[in-house]
């Protein structure tokens, strides 16, 4: 896996981007695949280890910089886009990548994320979206589906999740892509495009060439997750998917995306993907459809799986003071564990 640097001559390989630190994720965690994809991709685009800075927040995903033989900052929770903005503004000559989880980027770090996107700073942001808080042992995250039972939501979560692509587009991101940890080829392709997305600020004659990039990577431990669960979008090609590519997407007159059988509507009716069209926004939102694969997170970070699935945050109308209908905490409750008596 070596490649020739664009400048010609310098041959770097995957190992040149591997640090001497032991990788400490749970065996089987999807993060391994993403790390490998990055380390395979970098030699191919011809960038030197010393030109790279990986900045992260806190979380399992955010450990990644330790494993890269580049410059790196393992920062504080949620603030990686801000730290990276400082690096990138101070040093336009560097390649700055931001790494974080769904909690890091979309919960505590949501504001820095959207502002980094809006500002179009010269950074690439990779969000590892496992739809859970891994490091802190399994609380729901802003991308967790409604009803998810976790340690912090024993009765199921109530909150509508973010669709990360919608958030990014709503925040004026100039390059957004979503890929999958089980598909190394697609990951590498997306990362390369992210790397290449280093444009001058649109038509204005700014001298600092800046851009920003978001790739979203969903992790999964289930190796069975097949191709037919994913819709791959390629510029200029009709949006088709399924084991036999028998399904496709059409747009109705309101601009809503619908899934249809291709043989029923004909190939020509199928929407052709245009990366630059504003309605890409609508398509990012085929949530609940096969377009957004539901991933089962790794055992290490999953919440309790057999709690009761009810969805109320609190029971009924909420009186200002607990009325008699709200049971008082009782000695019985404090004793809910076995007790013993010392005489």
């Amino acid at each position, binding site marked *: 896996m070596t490649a020739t640097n664009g400048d010609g001559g310098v041959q770097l390989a995957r190992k040149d981007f591997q640090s001497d630190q*032991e990788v*400490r*994720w*749970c*065996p*089987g965690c999807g993060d391994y695949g993403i790390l490998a994809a990055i380390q395979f991709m970098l030699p191919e685009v011809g960038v030197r280890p010393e030109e790279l800075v990986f900045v992260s927040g*806190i979380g*399992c995903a955010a*450990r990644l910089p330790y494993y890269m033989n580049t410059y790196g900052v*393992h920062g*504080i*929770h*949620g603030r990686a886009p801000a730290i990276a903005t400082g690096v990138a503004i101070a040093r336009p000559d560097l390649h700055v990548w931001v790494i974080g989880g769904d909690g890091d980027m979309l*919960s*505590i770090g*949501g504001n820095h994320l959207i502002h980094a996107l809006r500002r179009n700073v010269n950074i690439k942001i990779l969000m590892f979206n496992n739809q859970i*808080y*891994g*490091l*802190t*042992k399994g*609380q*729901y995250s*802003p991308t967790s589906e409604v009803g998810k039972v976790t*340690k*912090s*939501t*024993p*009765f199921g979560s109530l909150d509508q999740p973010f669709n990360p692509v919608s958030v990014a587009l709503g925040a004026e991101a100039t390059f957004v892509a979503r890929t999958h940890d089980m598909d190394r080829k697609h990951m590498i392709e997306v990362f390369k495009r992210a790397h290449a997305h280093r444009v001058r600020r649109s038509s204005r004659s700014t001298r600092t060439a800046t851009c920003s990039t978001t790739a979203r990577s969903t992790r999964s431990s289930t190796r069975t997750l097949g191709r037919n669960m994913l819709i791959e979008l390629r510029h200029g090609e009709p949006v088709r998917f399924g084991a036999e590519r028998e399904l496709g997407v059409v747009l109705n007159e309101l601009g809503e995306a619908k899934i249809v059988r291709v043989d029923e509507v004909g190939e020509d009716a199928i929407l052709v993907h245009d990366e630059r069209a504003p309605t890409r926004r609508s398509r990012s939102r085929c949530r609940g459809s096969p377009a957004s694969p539901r991933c089962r997170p790794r*055992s*290490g*970070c999953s919440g309790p799986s*057999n709690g009761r699935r009810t969805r*109320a*945050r*609190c*029971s009924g109308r*909420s*009186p*200002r*003071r*607990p009325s008699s209908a*709200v*049971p*008082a*905490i*009782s*000695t019985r*409750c*404090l*004793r*809910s*564990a*076995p*007790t*013993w*008596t*010392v*005489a």
Partner: protein
Amino acid sequence: MNPAALKANLRDMPPGSTLLVNVDTFDQRNLDKAGYTSNPLTDGSLANHRVFEVPMTSITVEATKPLGVKPRDAERSKNFFALGLLCWMYTRPVEPLLDWIKRRFANRPEVLEANLAALRAGLNFGETAELFDHPYEVRPAQLPPGTYRNITGNLALSYGLVAAAQKAKLPLFYASYPITPASDILHELARLKHFGVKTLQAEDEIAAAGAAVGAAFAGSLAVTATSGPGVDLKAEAIGLAVSLELPLVLVDVQRGGPSTGLPTKTEQADLLLAMYGRHGEAPLPVVAARSPGHCFDAAFEAARLALKYRTPVVLLSDGYLANGAEPWPIPDLDALADISVEFATEPNHGDEFWPYLRDPETLARPWAIPGTPRLMHRVGGIEKEDGTGNVSYEPENHEKMTRLRAAKIAGIARDIPGVELDDQEGAELLLLTWGGTWGVGTAATRRVRARGKPVAHAHLVHLNPFPPDLGDVLARYPKVLVPELNLGQLSRLVRAEYLVDARSLTKVQGVPFRAAEVEAKILEMIEQ
């Protein structure tokens, strides 16, 4: 442990002990084989133990797969995974173990590699999943009569909050953002919605503190808990609560710092942060728990002060207390004090309602909650006119309000017990402890006395204000020693307040003192 091992050994495990169970083995077949009719992991029968459910088999299989080890063979390395995990949890050095394994399996290189991989996977699992454990040094079992259960600090703290809400006749509102080692309070309270508890996992610590301020304004007992980095983030909202004079409890389950530091280790290094970690003059009461079970009482006391004086209160716990467990005499809830406060219902200044007209004794302002007719009012973080609460930029008023806020907190000294002093005839040295060092303080005191040397021991639950008689107590001893898991924070406060030459014994290793360490220092100082 698998189901069979659990069945066989459970009766020998003292309450509060830690069980490491291999969840991969808890399938129906194994449960049946072991003779279980229901799954002990979910039926509550292990509630008295700290249970870590770890998928040992599958992780070991995954970890050894790259070495070409077959799943069946990998199974055998599983024990090394468990060993690695234990090393992590008990902060034991790994090198001796590595050497031993290398020697032991020197002539079977594949097995050696597999076992090493499993061991590393175990270590890494502990680190990655932020598993937290220190064995809490259980007091010798000379417990007074009563009914006990085993309880961790975080659970006791959660129950203490619920009990306080009940005794205050208020709903409990708890907002927080997950962080080790405070997350379990959220997990516990989230399960108690049938007691009128509302929990919010906020988008960050700032939002959690902000939501608590809102809930307090709306009439709840509002609580937010976190650990070091989260306390930094909540500072501004807590300052707002100081200015709004609303009741609120901020729990800080301290961990090793600075920055991310040692997130799974214990420390007592946030005391000065609790005291001074807000801009401007923004004093508030600080209370610290001294043992896992005492987290219940400390939470209750923090809530009492918050409600009575309409002020945010910082409640300090630490990782050692939070995750440690001890036998706990179950309190009689009926015997707990009534800490309810009255909401305002009527105008208090002619026809008008003045939100900053204070109770002359406590200096607390009235608490008029939305929904009450005729008491509509606005509060904000800009300086307020004494009485009316209207925005005021007037110099003398600012001085007056600043001193009133300080006097309100200082006045709490009249409402708290004197120093808990364990004196001894002839003692020249006072051992002064706070928070989690109480246990080791009592043990060291016992040990020194057993050597026939007199020593006195005082423990502080209230760190701001100090008990009213602390100055007098300190003056009685020529020597004062303060053991702290920091670089000397309480000793700075005591020195500044009383000009007493309090000496520090400090340790910053992420682990508690050993009694012998404190004992040695006491003896050394006595000799001097």
